[in-house]
């Protein structure tokens, strides 16, 4: 009986470890080989504080958690600057350094021999001597940690982590501070691992470095992979199966430790391979299959609202704009001003020896649709990257509402009201359609990991409403519980527009919103874009399709080789024979 209680305690401690590792790997796709090091730092810190300073074990635990969180930042901060494969190497180095410290700082850690006589868990001076008491106490702490993790997972904070996992750049473009989110997830994941380490030390009463090896990091990884990444119940299941089953193998006769050790590892390894091949989401995946929507509730908005005749092409369905007088089109309901919402002055950018953008100055008029056209390599997308801060310009300035924002990082520019889409969409394939839009909502208090714990915030409901109305606007409300990767290409293009609108930004930069679409879908998207100025939006659109430009743009800028060759109303630009020759490469 005692033995089973002991196994149960171990399962709980590993459950905490795999929950904390799930935050890193399952939610944020940060692959670290140093989780055992975090576990070890927690165990050693708590032990040393209790033994050397005579702290109460709970005070040691809290201090150990803080120390480990700070160590988490040591991996987290460099991880920001480097790409994912660097993190493997970086975290491995960290694991080796910590292990080496445990082995070699003999006067503190006791070296290989470890530390004995660690004070047992006690409450108000009453030591929990019986196994069942320890089990109960550790069980309560595990339950608390599970609750915290679940709150994080469901909160806007968890949503940002998943968005980073699916596409870091796109998350930045939505105005999220990816840098701080990554450091924080390393810190809180380390902090939770430290709780496990501290509990382990005070429960067993003895620690040595061999508990906190690279193999242990892999063991924790295996639990998360098996149970389910992005699902904390999965982590508990993973801990239960991977800790309890090998313990049961002890009762099989003729299974000496010399054979059982490698045998167990072969099973873990095979499990890792099989899961990746056949069930990469783990036993309990992140999302349940979406509930089927009852037929009577299915809106009809979705299919073929366009009246376009495919024979004649999409432009027949578009409202004629030829009645507009020369000069800039008047648009009903739009605040007609001729002030520039955004101005770029003299932007230049080199890539190696190529001058991608050369002294380019463009102004975007408030409430207008400005189109950028030009042959491939004209610098249109580079212009977007420069103004949104994805690349720093070599020279030049970007003004938004007259203020110089050139040096701001992308996420701050988005927060000031300038957001973009990407040619290659960069949606979040493993998030639901609704979450993809919801994550884009600005100023969510729940994105702060501490505020995320408060379960009764009214903002989540409001943001859901806003996100749903963005989905309704593009006609995807009925797909809200689908995974984004399951949408058709046309639907993904619409979703990319909905996500952009959800940012609430006033200036929208659209990079080829209609490319690769069939005529019906093009006409549908154009209808949507045309209504945006009436909602107070200013638009800049890059497009190869000249018919689209002719119908939608109020003002067209013609770029070639990184310079502006001409600008004017579409009629004038498209009537210019020289420009047409440049565009079509004729002579």
């Amino acid at each position: 009986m005692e033995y089973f209680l002991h196994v149960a305690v171990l399962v709980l401690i590993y459950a905490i470890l795999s929950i904390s590792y799930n935050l890193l790997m399952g939610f944020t796709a940060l692959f670290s080989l140093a989780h055992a090091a975090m576990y070890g730092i927690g165990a050693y810190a708590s032990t040393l504080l209790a033994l050397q300073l005579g702290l109460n074990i709970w005070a040691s635990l809290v201090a150990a958690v803080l120390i480990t969180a700070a160590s988490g930042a040591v991996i987290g901060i460099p991880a920001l600057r480097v790409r994912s494969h660097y993190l493997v190497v970086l975290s491995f180095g960290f694991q080796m350094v910590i292990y080496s410290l445990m082995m070699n700082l003999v006067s503190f850690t006791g070296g290989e021999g470890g530390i004995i006589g660690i004070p047992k868990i006690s409450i108000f001076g009453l030591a929990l001597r019986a196994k069942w008491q320890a089990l109960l106490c550790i069980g309560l702490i595990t339950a608390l940690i599970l609750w915290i993790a679940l709150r994080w997972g469901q909160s806007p904070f968890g949503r940002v982590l998943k968005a980073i996992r699916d596409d870091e750049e796109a998350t930045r473009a939505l105005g999220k501070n990816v840098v701080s989110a990554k450091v924080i997830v390393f810190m809180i994941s380390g902090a939770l691992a430290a709780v496990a380490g501290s509990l382990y030390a005070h429960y067993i009463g003895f620690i040595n470095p061999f508990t906190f090896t690279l193999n242990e990091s892999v063991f924790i990884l295996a639990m998360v992979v098996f149970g389910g990444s992005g699902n904390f119940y999965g982590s508990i299941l993973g801990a239960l199966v991977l800790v309890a089953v090998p313990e049961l193998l002890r009762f099989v006769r003729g299974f000496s430790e010399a054979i059982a050790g490698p045998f167990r590892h072969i099973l873990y390894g095979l499990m890792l391979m099989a899961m990746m091949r056949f069930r990469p989401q783990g036993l309990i995946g992140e999302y349940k299959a979406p509930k089927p929507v009852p037929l009577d509730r299915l809106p009809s908005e979705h299919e073929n609202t366009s009246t376009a005749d495919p024979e004649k092409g999409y432009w027949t369905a578009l409202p004629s704009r030829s009645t507009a007088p020369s000069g800039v089109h008047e648009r009903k309901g739009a605040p007609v001003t001729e002030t520039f919402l955004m101005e770029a002055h003299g932007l230049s950018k080199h890539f190696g020896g190529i001058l991608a953008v050369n002294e380019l100055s463009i102004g975007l008029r408030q409430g207008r649709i400005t189109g950028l056209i030009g042959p491939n390599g004209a610098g249109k997308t580079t212009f977007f990257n420069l103004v949104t801060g994805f690349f720093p310009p070599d020279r030049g300035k970007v003004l938004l509402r007259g203020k110089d924002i050139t040096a701001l990082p992308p996420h701050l520019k988005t927060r000031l009201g300038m957001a973009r889409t990407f040619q290659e969409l960069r949606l979040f394939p493993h998030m639901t359609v609704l979450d993809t839009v919801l994550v884009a909502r600005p100023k969510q208090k729940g994105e702060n990991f501490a505020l995320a714990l408060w379960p009764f915030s009214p903002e989540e409901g409001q943001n859901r409403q806003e996100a749903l109305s963005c989905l309704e606007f593009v006609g995807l409300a009925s797909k809200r519980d689908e995974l984004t990767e399951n949408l058709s290409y046309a639907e993904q293009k619409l979703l990319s527009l909905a996500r952009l609108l959800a940012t609430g930004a006033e200036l929208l930069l659209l990079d080829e919103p209609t490319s690769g679409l069939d005529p019906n879908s093009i006409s549908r998207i154009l209808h949507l874009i045309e209504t945006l100025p009436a909602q107070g939006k200013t638009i800049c659109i890059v497009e190869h399709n000249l018919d689209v430009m002719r119908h939608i743009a109020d003002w067209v800028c013609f770029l070639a080789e990184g310079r502006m060759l001409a600008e004017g109303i579409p009629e004038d630009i498209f009537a210019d024979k020289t420009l047409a020759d440049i565009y079509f490469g004729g002579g």
Partner: protein
Amino acid sequence: MELFAQLATIGIILGSLYALFAVSWGVIFKVTKTFHFAHGIVFTIGAYACLIFTNYLRIPLILSALLAVAVSSLAGVAIELLTYRPLRRILSTPLAILISSLGTLIVVENFIALVMGSDIKPITGFHPKAIFVGPVAFTSIQLTIVIISLLLVVGLIWFLYRTRTGRILQAVASNPEMAEVVGIDAPKVFLLAFAIGSALIGVAGVLSLLEKGANPYMGTMAVLIGAIAVIMGGVESIPGGAVSGFILGVAINLSVIRIPSEWQYAIAFGIVIVLIILRPEGILAQKTR
């Protein structure tokens, strides 16, 4: 001074081997973008194949070594075909491929431990000669390690930058889609990268066996050292990886002059962490932007 010369010699031996770890891992990583953990097991397979051929099948050592290199090359190709290719086909994330690769490493190394035992196994009937040059002593096998490793490293770099096939590998490395457009069979080139990288790490496995014997878990350190060197050298640059690997080996040994040997790995990895933080584009890379 004598101590310095001796430590530097051992450092050069280790550094040559590390350079071989780096280029063999680097050519696979650069071309296929796979974080190939299981490269470590190919190293171990090379060592054990040579051990079995020589100790149990009584095949002459040189022939055993050549066969072992062929076995390693095939093992690497098999890992690509059986593990990575099916995953790429179902559009797995890089993380999934990395985890699967780690799984492959764990399965095979423990399988070897089950069958062969987990103790260190030396090759029998092989006695390297001691060579003395002034105050410095080393063995004939250590000299062989340096010569063969450096020849292979230089040979690979020559192959990649100076031959037509090498340029095809580079083309796939920089843009697989574009390479396919101009008629290069990218999956075949992936196989070639695995075959070359695996043969090279197989040579390293055989050389390590001859120097220190084989144990089932020798591969983990080899692959991680290789990956560290490649990343320190800048992932785009195979010569950069070779130089970093070499420097890493020499530095770890020379550090013993000033610091106790049990600390050398902690300090080496500490320095690696700092370098990666300070120069994420690689220590030898020029800033391109």
